[in-house]
């Protein structure tokens, strides 16, 4: 009881559940009329089409005269009249099986998709379970090598922090960096800061500044962004128009980006139409299938897809997470690069968050998150991402757990600090060289060590605005930044930035799923996903797998043993006195010490010095009216047999067995080995008082009493996770020292120790 008022008619577990973070999440009932249906709504059309004179004349329940702007664009530019008869005639279940069949190649399915209407695509993927969708996704995704994208923003639009965090994101392995602003007029300063930061270290990350379309194009033109993904599309006509665009305006914009050598992807995701109030009572998946057909029709190379802003709303519905995976599958099936969502915190439950990401980690994705919060939650100007700066290490461990490449690489603490220093200094030099701002060392220092903007004493949003306006007004471009970097001695950064600018001349990174890896453009053209069953598709090479394993604080045997040896006693404190004999004192309690106890091991898992543990046991036995005797058991290190052996030697028939790691048993001669009287199985939790109490109980047993067993309280700690690596390595020392033929040895405490126990 914790003192809270309780309702006596309620199982209190519900109150505990009420207090869990999960209960902040909302869960919505199905209601197709109100737009709340996931895979299928009664208002969805059945898959249908007709062709007349090589032209699509009807599609998904509408004649061409009734086509809305989305139907029209899909019918004219997505559907291939030469494939449509074949594809639409196939049974949806049969196509669904082809998606998970390793013998049906990806390109064959992509060919068929060009003849399938949105309703047909939705019907097919609706037949797959979540597991099958993940598997099909692994097969159908476009680029073989998976990657990830970072959000880099902060609550102050502080350029110094943006530079430091961009450099950090590059070091973490993010292939793309996306920023946005708290204050729209700070866009140019944000773009310049991230551009400089991303040039520190390895470089090579594509960068975008998310802002109003026209402004974004201008920033890109100045070389201060290399890609764009704000080309949003919607699945209903009214939502599209409310978004102030049409498929033609967006297709034009897409071409405009390419004409400037800027990579672009569209954005769409379930429930955006629902949030905008124009859902037409259609299911989320059907509307999304329309968005995705439209994107392929527009000729954009890829999509940011999978809920995005609508992800939490989708996650509120039954089957919602499965739907988000299904729409991503349609995206890659249509041959689009997929930045697969996972960029919005869909839940307050860390378990739901971890579960959400897992299929994507297993299947891989062109960009697993279309924005992993590399910064802290409160600094994310897009809103918290599914994973954030707080949880980066959790993600790194998940990669290692499943032996999968989630696109991220563990960073060395000293290395990342030096990159942050370098990035902020480089940006200060550029701002100074271009006469945009003059930055003092104290600001740099406050940013370099800060985890987030709440800890910095740096630029405020208002101070950034004039810098941003000056960059724009003076027409500064990335070439000015290259020059400034080079002039101020940031040669490597100047080279990295120039390398990125050169990309737009060849346009290699305009192809599907392109990213830069180790100074090379890698895309679906030169790195196509060729998954066709076991031992095909993407596998980490040995070097990459070593990188993924490089998380912090990995225990090695040498390391664990060294930590033990540090505590080694200069002088022995347990002195052997020859073979142990069976005692005769009816109140004697023999303490049977394990082979390594005080020999090679000197502390319990709880951190107690073994001398103190022995003292506590002896003192307890004496307190209880017993007489303690110490014996080294050498033929076994197993707790039960240590205890039973000690009991066998004891005049009272009661003995205590103890391992060096602190696991302790109270045993009685004649009992079955595992039917002990008392056991401290959770050594990490046992205190000296517990050992003392156990000694006392042992002694009271010799007087014929049945004392209350000593309880070591547990609160459900994951003790295996916390200790078993060390347990396994340390216990191996014990077993290594056992000698099945060796007899127990009588021990005495060294004289100077004896005194302390008196």
């Amino acid at each position: 009881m914790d003192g809270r008022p309780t309702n006596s008619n309620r199982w209190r577990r519900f109150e505990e559940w009420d207090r869990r973070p999960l209960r902040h999440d909302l869960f919505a009932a199905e209601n197709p009329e109100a737009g709340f249906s996931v895979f299928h709504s009664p208002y969805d059309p059945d898959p249908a089409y007709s062709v007349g004179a090589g032209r699509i004349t009807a599609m998904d329940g509408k004649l061409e005269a009734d086509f809305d702007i989305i139907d029209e664009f899909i019918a004219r530019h997505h559907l291939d009249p030469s494939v449509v008869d074949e594809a639409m005639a196939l049974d949806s279940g049969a196509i669904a099986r082809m998606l998970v069949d390793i013998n049906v190649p990806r390109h064959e399915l992509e060919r068929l998709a060009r003849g399938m209407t949105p309703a047909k695509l939705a019907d097919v993927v609706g037949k797959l379970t979540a597991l099958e969708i993940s598997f099909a996704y692994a097969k159908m995704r476009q680029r073989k090598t998976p990657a990830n994208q970072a959000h880099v923003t902060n609550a102050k639009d502080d350029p110094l922090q943006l530079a430091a965090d961009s450099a950090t994101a590059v070091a973490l392995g993010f292939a793309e960096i996306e920023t946005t602003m708290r204050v729209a007029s700070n866009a140019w300063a944000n773009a310049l800061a991230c551009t400089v930061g991303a040039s520190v270290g390895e470089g090579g990350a594509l960068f975008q500044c998310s802002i109003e379309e026209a402004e974004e194009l201008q920033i890109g033109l100045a070389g201060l962004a290399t890609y764009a993904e704000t080309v949003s599309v919607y699945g209903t006509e009214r939502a599209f128009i409310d978004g102030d665009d049409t498929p033609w305006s967006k297709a034009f914009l897409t071409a405009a980006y390419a004409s400037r050598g800027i990579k672009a992807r569209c954005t769409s995701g379930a429930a955006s139409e629902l949030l905008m109030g124009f859902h037409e009572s259609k299911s989320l998946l059907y509307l999304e299938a329309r968005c995705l057909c439209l994107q392929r029709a527009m000729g954009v190379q890829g999509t940011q897809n999978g809920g995005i802003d609508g992800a939490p709303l989708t996650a509120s519905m039954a089957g919602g997470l499965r739907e988000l995976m299904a729409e991503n599958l349609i995206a890659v099936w249509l041959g689009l690069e997929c930045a697969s969502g996972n960029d919005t915190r869909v839940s307050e439950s860390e378990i739901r968050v971890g579960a959400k990401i897992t299929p994507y980690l297993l299947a891989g994705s062109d960009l697993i998150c279309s924005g992993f919060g590399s910064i802290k939650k409160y600094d994310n100007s897009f809103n918290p991402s599914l994973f954030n700066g707080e949880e980066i290490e959790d993600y790194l461990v998940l990669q290692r757990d499943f032996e999968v490449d989630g696109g991220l690489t563990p960073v060395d603490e000293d290395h990342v600090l030096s990159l942050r220093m370098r990035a902020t200094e480089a940006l200060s030099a550029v701002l100074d060289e271009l006469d945009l701002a003059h930055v003092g060392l104290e600001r740099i220092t406050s940013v370099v060590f800060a985890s987030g903007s709440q800890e910095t004493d740096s630029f405020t949003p208002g101070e950034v605005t004039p810098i941003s306006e000056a960059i724009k007004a003076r027409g500064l471009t990335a070439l000015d930044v290259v020059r400034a970097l080079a002039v101020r001695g940031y040669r490597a950064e100047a080279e990295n930035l120039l390398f990125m600018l050169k990309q737009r001349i060849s346009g290699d990174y305009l192809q599907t799923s392109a990213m830069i890896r180790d100074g090379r453009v890698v895309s679906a053209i030169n790195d196509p996903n060729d998954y066709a069953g076991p031992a095909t598709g993407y596998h980490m090479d040995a070097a990459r797998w070593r990188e993924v394993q490089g998380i912090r604080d990995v225990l090695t045997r040498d390391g664990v043993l060294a930590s033990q040896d540090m505590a080694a006693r200069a002088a022995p404190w347990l002195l052997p006195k020859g073979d142990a004999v069976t005692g005769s004192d009816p109140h004697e309690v023999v303490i049977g010490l394990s082979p390594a106890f005080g020999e090679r091991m000197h502390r319990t898992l709880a951190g107690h010095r073994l001398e103190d543990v022995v003292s506590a046991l002896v003192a307890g036995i004496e307190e209880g009216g017993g007489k303690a005797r110490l014996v080294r058991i050498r033929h076994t290190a197993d707790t039960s047999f240590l205890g039973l052996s000690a009991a066998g030697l004891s005049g009272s028939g009661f003995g205590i067995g103890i391992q060096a790691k602190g696991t302790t048993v109270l045993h009685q001669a004649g009992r079955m080995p595992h039917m002990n009287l008392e056991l401290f199985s959770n050594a990490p939790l046992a205190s000296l008082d517990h050992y003392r109490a156990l000694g006392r109980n042992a002694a009271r047993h010799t007087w014929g009493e049945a004392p209350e067993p000593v309880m070591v309280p547990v609160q459900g700690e994951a003790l295996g996770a916390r200790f078993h690596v060390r347990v396994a390595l340390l216990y191996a020392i014990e077993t290594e020292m056992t000698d099945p033929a060796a007899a127990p040895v009588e021990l005495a405490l060294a004289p100077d120790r004896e005194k302390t126990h008196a």
Partner: protein
Amino acid sequence: MPDPHMPDLMDIYPVAEKAPEKIRTPTGKPLSALTVEAVLAGEITPQDIAITPEALHLQADVARAAGRHTLVHNFERAADLVNVPQHVILETYELLRPGRAPDARTLLAQADMLRREYGAAHVATMIEEAASVYERRGLFQKRY
């Protein structure tokens, strides 16, 4: 999937790496001329940091060889737009947004201008298509 008829085009990708001689900046410089030294010497201008219609047509060929036909069309439209000035790009984009153009005629005139002055045939065709659909769907109504 690679089209068996055009394997050579797949082989020159990435072009900057496998066939850099096929690429020039808009001012005619080879990729190798873009060095930090050249930037410091003032030899590189923002004009150099841009893609050419030729490079986009080359990428369109690569995309075609890879069977990505809608991407090909996008690259062709992009090639059309390379020499269209930024303000005309933004003006055209604005006209294509719903409720901006008062009638189909305005869009058709823009298409005509792009075709005539910049040879932007693919883009013009797309705008003409928009004009007829906007008419049918009533998108010439002013929104604000």
